[in-house]
């Protein structure tokens, strides 16, 4: 599984970073980006899905 943050859609709500700091980080402007090329370890797949499901801007996508 991989996660991807669309920088055009992200408005810096910071929900993904709060829910899954192992998978996402934010820059100085508060915009999110995926860590480790977006690769999600199996143990963190639930967290990844939760991050997706809580983004108000629909900025995060998952590819399996």
């Amino acid at each position, binding site marked *: 599984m991989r996660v991807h943050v669309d920088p055009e859609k992200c408005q*810096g709500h910071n929900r993904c970073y709060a829910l899954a700091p192992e998978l996402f980080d934010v820059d100085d402007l508060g915009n999110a980006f995926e860590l480790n090329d977006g690769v999600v370890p199996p143990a963190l797949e639930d967290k990844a899905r939760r991050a997706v499901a809580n983004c108000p801007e629909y900025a995060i996508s998952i590819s399996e």
Partner: protein
Amino acid sequence: MTTQHPPVENWATDFDHTDPQWVADPYPIWDELRSSCPVAHSERYGGTWLPLRHEDVSAIAYDTEHFTSRSVVVSEVRPGPDDLPAPIGLAPPITSDPPFHALARRLLLPAFSPRRIDALEPFTRQLCVELLDAAAGRTELDAAVDYAQHIPLRVIVRMLGFPQEDADVFRRFVRMVLEDVDQSPEERQAVVEEGELDAYMDARIAEHLADPQDDLTSFLLDAELDGHKLEPAHVRGTMVLLMIAGIDTTWSAIGASLWHLAQSPADRRRLVDEPDTMATAVEEFLRAYAPVTMARLVAKDFDFQGQRLKEGDWLLLPFPAANRDPDFFPDADQVRIDRAENRHAAFGLGIHRCIGSNLARMELRVALEEWMRRYPDFELTDPGQVTWSAGQVRGPRCVPVRVLRGD
């Protein structure tokens, strides 16, 4: 000293967000309008629109072509195209439109990044403890007056580097800008022309120019756009924005959350027994009791959901109503503090996402953690004594509670 508006009789054609019925409990009004309209219109304030569905609120928030943020507080004074300092607006970046908006916002964002806000947590926690200590031994206190209102106020005063003893002055400014919106145009104009708020800010700016500090005010005075220092009107407008937007809103969120907890023994018990639930609880309180309704002016005539929106019309952008849309949130009218999927719009959507959202969220979480640690069990003294603010920021202004079990 406000003009009395006649009571609303038909919410679909004559709504008024300062009407006592709306102020006391807007949710049934929104639910009814959402299923019947779904975009309501009122002649009040010179013509105002009100979308209710998440889908519509969201579409308008993203549409900066047909809607301008030049003024974001609906009142009897509707600014014309040339009345405000384009493209900045009175309080950049909230009152700015693209493309200037992005520049003004970019400037401020680093000061409100998660890491910068994390650094303020110890100060905030200490402040909460002190407020609770000040009420120690009392079995009755007011969760809004004695606790919630002081927290965001003192944090933003510290961030701006203003004197802590100016708290009362600040409270009055906030009321002036956000709550006295039903004043007549003459009354409101007189307040603006008196210039007290600008004079206060100018005095703080002068102090900081003479003696720069490590705070937001000096940061703004030192900041540059396109190689030039910001214009004084820009600095002052942004300071007013941070002061006003940073206080009433979070005070409302903390107060509404404590108001909810005072009435929900099950949620109190759960937060005490399973403190990790606080993370989802904070988001759920923000969804269910979102304090902030924004506003736009229609920038050009536009057909929207079967209505003809005319250039210059006001439009209320009720994120709190979007957060209660049952087509978007299952059990939208229920507070579920463990709600796992919660794309709430309490901080807005699109380019104007609340710049202080990380700060507000931290303050709300810390305020609730410290309150619950001190008072795991409490109830409303008298639900009839709870009062709510009028205008676009909704929150309880009096929440008298009785302590059932103190720590």
